[in-house]
């Protein structure tokens, strides 16, 4: 699929994917402060406004957890363990600090394990509420102010409302550009494969927002120009899960003879679809996006009158993506010991199936070595919907 002479964007994405954090290292040398973070719940707008480079931490599916297990028990989410293991092994040695938002127990309750082992100059636990009503929005704005205060103290600068408003614009633009790239997958066959897209998504979260936008733009231009793949006679698959950040999963799907055309992942559609409204108080817009617009299982309490209404509010966007991207089947890929996603499995499965789209539910470790069994299930699922 590659091999085009001017494959600048995709090549870059491939490099940043393979050497994760390469650009952060360079930026650090140039004197930029690097702040690592976990989860879709970290308000990157604030970090960008502060002038630091926010880098989202990832795990490494093809590496065994070795050092990390000395500090974290195997009951903890395998993704968190992998990312933590990478951190204590020094893979994110460029970090000046980290932000851990209150998401799931595996993140919340390991906050001290992270902070005491990494011992970085800056550390912040962002106490994001889990319910989304009016009082929670007020609370969220308050904790954003606290967050801003700690950054200002660490950096010795003031983070102005104007800087935040500019950062909001930049991140909204970044999201719009990524959605433009996604649109190229609506065609049959999709103009960009799921494997390539995974590399772009991972590369994008390792860069400051302006560089991320430039990368996405160049990938989109490149993909538009190159000839479309010939094989249109394949089933179109959607993947749903939290932070799937390794090409092994899209590879397993596409090597089985399908196209991965869209996702609902916390490094993909989940973060690129909702924008921050440009409100007079910029924190209002940020609070609303992270609490209400982000569709993740840890910040949701149904406010509808009926169960059906709550299902629509929680999962309605999935049906929209399925229709827009002409999805033939959905794969629900949940990591072992993931409570928030695990709780929702029966609801999301039956909700999607009620729309006539078959669902394959997979639960696995965060490891490429256990994928053989997963591959058999994916193949059987494709044979089933053929």
């Amino acid at each position, binding site marked *: 699929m590659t091999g085009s002479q001017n494959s600048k964007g995709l090549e870059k994405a491939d490099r940043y994917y393979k050497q994760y954090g390469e650009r952060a290292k360079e930026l650090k040398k140039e004197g930029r402060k690097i702040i690592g973070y976990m989860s879709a719940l970290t308000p990157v707008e604030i970090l960008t406004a502060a002038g630091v480079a926010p880098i989202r931490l990832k795990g490494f599916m093809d590496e065994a957890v070795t050092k990390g297990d000395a500090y974290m028990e195997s009951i903890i989410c395998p993704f968190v363990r992998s990312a933590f293991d990478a951190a204590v092994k020094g893979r994110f040695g460029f970090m000046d600090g980290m932000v851990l938002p209150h998401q799931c127990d595996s993140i919340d309750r390991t906050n001290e394990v992270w902070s005491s082992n990494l011992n970085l100059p800056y550390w912040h636990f962002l106490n994001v509420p889990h319910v989304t009503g009016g009082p929670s929005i007020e609370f969220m704005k308050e904790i954003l102010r606290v967050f801003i205060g700690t950054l200002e103290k660490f950096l010795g600068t003031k983070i102005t409302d104007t800087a935040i408003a500019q950062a909001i614009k930049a991140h909204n633009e970044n999201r719009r550009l990524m959605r433009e790239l996604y649109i190229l997958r609506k065609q049959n066959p999709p103009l960009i494969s799921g494997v390539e897209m995974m590399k772009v998504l991972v590369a994008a979260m390792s860069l400051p927002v302006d560089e991320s936008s430039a990368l996405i733009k160049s990938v989109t231009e490149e993909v538009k120009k190159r000839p479309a793949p010939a094989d249109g006679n394949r089933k179109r698959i959607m993947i749903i899960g939290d932070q799937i950040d390794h090409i092994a999963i899209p590879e397993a799907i596409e090597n089985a003879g399908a196209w991965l055309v869209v996702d609902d992942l916390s490094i993909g559609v989940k973060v690129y679809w909702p924008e921050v409204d440009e409100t007079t108080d910029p924190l209002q817009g940020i609070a609303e996006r992270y609490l209400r617009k982000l569709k993740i299982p840890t910040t949701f309490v149904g406010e509808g009158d009926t169960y059906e209404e709550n299902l629509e509010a929680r999962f309605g966007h999935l049906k929209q993506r399925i229709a827009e991207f002409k999805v033939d089947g959905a794969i629900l890929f949940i990591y072992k010991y993931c409570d928030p996603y695990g709780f929702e499995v029966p609801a999301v499965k039956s909700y999607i199936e009620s729309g006539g789209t078959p669902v394959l539910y997979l639960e696995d470790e965060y490891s490429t070595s256990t994928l053989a069994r997963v591959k058999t299930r994916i193949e*059987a699922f494709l*044979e*089933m919907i053929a």
Partner: protein
Amino acid sequence: MLVAGIDIGSITTEALLFDKEKGIVGYDILQTGADSKKTAEMALEKVLAYPGKNISDVSYIIATGCGRKRASFAKQAITEITCIARGVNHLFPEARTIIDIGGQDTKVIKVDGKGRVIEFEMNDKCAAGTGRFIEVMAKALNVELDRIGDSSLKHKKEVTISSICTVFAESEVISLVSEGEELEDILYGIHKAIADRTMGLISRIGGAEKEVVMTGGVAKNIGVVKALEAALNMPLKIHVEPQIVGALGAAMIALEKTA
């Protein structure tokens, strides 16, 4: 016209030769061992030797099972889930639910009247409640594998094995022995545990619908069969050679491909 199906499983490999007019010509079952590619070739050779045929006489070969991609002589690899469903449909057209317990996998499959898969579930990656589990228990209790089923039918009381993890269940079984429980009762407990676990998978595909067919090597264990029938409150249909159903299904699909 001849077609063949080959099922390369975790413990055994089955080759089956099918004639369009005459039906099953022959089959062979081998231990898979460490070299699944070689075993697959040997199984095919053996099954061809009986009617005195060559591989060139076979119009289409499909491989299935966890080693399906290792059979380079096969034209296509199809998962065992799809193949078992087709094989069962050929033998029992009224089948709607299939329970397949093999060496390291338990699968439950919901099928329609044409043998198409509607839904399926598999055990997770541990081999709890599968053929390997029974082998480990038989060894721990020093009972021959082919006697374990019959012995369990002579049980006098209900002994519960609470853990289905092979390693934990083994130590549980050993402590039951030291507590003086009867061998038959323990064996019954083991089979009941397998049935309970399988029922959990069945509930995930919306329960069992008539007829229920059982396939895979564990279908030869009368203890598991009886425990499952009791749990389902339904009789199980079982082919005389339940291990070859995957290979048969592969051959049936191969036949379709040549049409």
